[in-house]
């Protein structure tokens, strides 16, 4: 069923029309293959998921949370803050701020205690993601405030800025998480 055979079978069919229906058929095949393979894989991706909500709640609160990369750098070198990476886990493993812990927005409820169970409510926490309009760092920061964390800050566009400043980074799964059920 190659192109030559197709053309031989339909000698009068214009190439444009042929290309059109073939494109449609390839698109359809791709959608079916993608959906079926996703359905059967163990790490199935939900077809509807939250990535970057357009209207994150608490805009006013967010404005007071932002810190500059210089401030974040100061906290980092003074070992005065815990950095929390809110990007998807895969991105974290590809590279993250040194000693940062991974707490993606979509896993917040499930992983909060395991990731931050050993951290006191007065600890300085800096959340970050990547891209200037990435909202997950702000949303995680707001969730942390709700959980009782008192010193939460957001480093906007954190991952890009951190790398631009050539600050310490690490690759891989990162530090072990702490499954402490006595979280505040």
């Amino acid at each position, binding site marked *: *069923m*190659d*192109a*030559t055979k*197709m053309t031989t079978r339909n000698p009068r069919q*214009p*190439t*444009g029309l*042929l*290309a*059109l*229906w*073939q*494109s*449609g*058929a*390839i*698109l359809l*095949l*791709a*959608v079916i*293959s*993608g*959906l079926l*393979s*996703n359905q059967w894989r163990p*790490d199935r*991706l*939900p*077809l*509807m*998921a*939250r*990535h*970057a*909500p*357009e209207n994150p709640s608490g805009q006013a609160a967010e404005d007071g949370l932002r810190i500059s990369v210089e401030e974040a750098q100061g906290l980092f070198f003074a070992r005065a803050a815990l950095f929390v990476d809110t*990007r*998807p*886990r*895969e*991105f974290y493993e*590809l*590279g993250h701020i040194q000693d940062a812990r991974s707490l993606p927005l979509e896993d917040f409820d499930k992983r909060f205690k395991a990731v931050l169970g050993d951290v006191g409510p007065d600890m300085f926490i800096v959340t970050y993601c*990547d*891209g*200037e*309009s*990435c909202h997950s760092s702000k949303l995680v920061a707001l969730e942390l405030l709700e959980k009782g964390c008192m010193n939460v800050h957001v480093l906007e566009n954190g*991952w*890009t800025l951190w*790398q*631009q400043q050539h600050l310490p980074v690490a*690759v891989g799964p990162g530090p072990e998480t702490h499954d402490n059920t006595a979280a505040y």
Partner: protein
Amino acid sequence: MRLLLGGVFVWASTYKILHPAAFAGVIANYQLLPDAWVNGFAVTLPWLELLLGSFLIFGIWLPGAVVLSNLLLVVFSGALLFNVARGLDIHCGCFTSDAMGNPKTTWYLVRNAALITVAACLLFKVVIRKRA
């Protein structure tokens, strides 16, 4: 030419098929699609690349595969250019979902331009010249 373009598409699809969540992150970073569409694209787009690549390599449904390859490459480059124009410095996510290092946007655009040239030559050979 079709083997080259097909090989590139197959190569580009493999990492994305293996790591759909990371690829969804890349698509979301482009900030072009509604949130609800991101994961759907992340699971189907790599398969489109794989099918296109295989069809180009094995010469199956060539007119359709060539037209679609051209369209896809133009859309990819358009998305990159659009984000450059609005000052968003993002990783291409064309072959991996690796977000390490600073995005090499100029390189991404040059590479896409080269691929579009190859795809356009194929379009001329397979579709336009045949019509004439």
